[in-house]
């Protein structure tokens, strides 16, 4: 890990942590949710670097959230670290099972198959009335290694937890993006035939980024459900996944921090448009989306980082 990356990670954490001091309550919650969703989107960005876009990341977001909730409600586990590890483990296993299957598909077929998978989870959960069906389940507030904060302290602790996760995941993903494997993924996005004829398996490349996406989705889902206190099958619905894709496109695949900035922007736009245009918020959101796609075709990241050999 280079010094500049360490410094960037430290700076990012300090900046995020400052948010805990200055943000009003509602905004701290909004930021925590946005960062949790940003983790899911970071997984999509990882796949985008290899040329794939999953329209079904809701699968892992939902799976992580349900695993945490069921474990918490069945076994009385409330420790956020343990819950994160457990649900991430489940997502990892599922990701490993589906990854190799989906990795043979490209473009729109990959997008639609991943979407179908998450819709199957959505349908299955909707049918399971013993775990709440479409109404979903509640989960109690988490504890932090035995400490059970309440009110503002709880929100702050959750916010800092997600901030730490964001910095760790962001740093690891940056290392991966810059690694030899990351370079091969970029090449696969660009020219799959070339990569195959160099002797690397594009399918493996795609499987790796899919599995990383699954893990990130699980972490994001776990934190989101702990912050929200409630999960329902909607977590796996296609519109949820569509939003993740939107954030990923808004951010672009060049810069990691821009993923989280994009996630926060989307949450703010949605929150304010919902309040100020309660009858036309979808219209406002759609126009915002179009403007972003037209003005920033390579995403926010392209403002700060150009895809050239000298980008460090």
């Amino acid at each position, binding site marked *: 890990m280079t010094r500049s990356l360490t410094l960037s990670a430290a700076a990012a954490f300090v900046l995020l942590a400052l948010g805990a001091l200055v943000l009003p309550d509602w905004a701290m919650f909004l930021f925590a949710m946005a960062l949790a969703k940003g983790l899911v989107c970071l997984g999509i960005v990882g796949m985008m670097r290899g040329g794939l876009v999953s329209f079904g990341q809701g699968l892992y977001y939902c799976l992580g959230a349900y695993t945490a909730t069921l474990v918490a409600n069945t076994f009385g586990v409330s420790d956020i670290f343990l819950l994160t590890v457990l649900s991430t483990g489940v997502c990892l296993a599922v990701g490993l099972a589906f990854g190799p299957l989906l990795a043979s598909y490209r473009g729109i077929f990959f997008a639609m198959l991943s979407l179908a998978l998450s819709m199957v989870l959505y349908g299955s959960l909707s049918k399971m009335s013993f775990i709440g069906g479409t109404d979903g389940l509640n989960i109690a507030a988490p504890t932090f290694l035995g400490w059970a904060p309440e009110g503002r302290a709880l929100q702050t602790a959750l916010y800092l937890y997600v901030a730490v996760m964001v910095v760790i995941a962001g740093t690891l993903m940056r290392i991966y993006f810059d690694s030899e494997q990351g370079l091969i993924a970029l090449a696969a996005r660009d020219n799959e035939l070339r990569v195959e004829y160099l002797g690397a398996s594009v399918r493996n490349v795609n499987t790796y980024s899919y599995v990383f996406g699954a893990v990130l989705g699980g972490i994001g889902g776990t934190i989101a459900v702990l912050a929200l206190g409630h999960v329902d099958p909607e977590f796996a619905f296609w519109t949820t996944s569509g939003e993740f894709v939107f954030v990923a496109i808004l951010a672009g695949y060049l810069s990691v921090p821009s993923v989280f900035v994009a996630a926060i922007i989307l949450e703010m736009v949605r929150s304010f448009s919902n309040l100020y245009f309660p009858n036309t918020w979808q219209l406002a959101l759609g126009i915002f989306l179009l403007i972003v*796609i037209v003005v920033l075709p390579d995403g926010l990241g392209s403002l700060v980082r150009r895809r050239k050999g000298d980008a460090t």
Partner: protein
Amino acid sequence: MDLVATILVDGLIYAGWLFIVSVGLTLVFGVLNILNIAHGSLYAIGAYASATLVGIYFANGGDAIPWGSYAALILAAVLVALVVGPILERGLLRFFYGRDEVLNVLVTYAVFLILEDVMKLIWGVNPYFVYEPYTLLGDVEIGPLFYVGYDFAVIAAAIIVGLGVWLTLNRTRMGKVVLAVIHDSEMSQTMGVNVPRIYLGAFMAGTFLAALGGALTAPMISVTPGLGVNVIIVAFAVVIIGGLGSVPGAAIGALMVGISRAASVHLLPEAELFIIYFVMAVVLMFRPEGLFAKTQARKI
């Protein structure tokens, strides 16, 4: 034995509807290479437009010739194609040709969000009803069951649409040009085909078919906000099963989904929700690009 017949009839009726709503989607994808999420919104707009038009028809003495309401239904779809099609294609989509497929999905997702609210601004949230055309064709008794004649009219409409699209593509000069564009738009452009005009035409045709689906459905439902959302996913599945860009594929896909769904409702209602994904997964497992995918042999 009559159970099998019932399943087939129910399946055919559903398949007819599925085909009409998905054939436009596959056509637009084939030509423009855009998987149009807003297809569902166009369906809903078609439903609203026909509800409005048929309403106007009966409010102005249409009762004398109730059959005219069918013309009003179709006219509504034509109007939607003439108005909304060019606005979307010329005003927006043409700026995205050749861009990443998935990015284009997102563009149409934005259009979908916008149209949802635009419809609400135009038609409000109260439902529209135009049940007159639904009951006009009387009942059909098949075995122990009654069907509405209109259901069979939908099947007939699906067949006419299918034949119409197929004949246009394969038996007219224009259609052959469109097929050439589906096959390789760059090549066609160098060969002097007016590709922008083909794109506009194809998108308007796709819009017409989506709106026609909505217009034909309107008499049997209440036309309310949120109508388009559910159509998108099933139409996607049918098109993916059949192979993106393939008209016969959409027909076969619609039949497969329609009949398996009917079988499921009669025999195993719990599985109905999953049946469409099941069919899709099975097809893609054996044919990763769908049943009738356009071949993508690449010269190296």
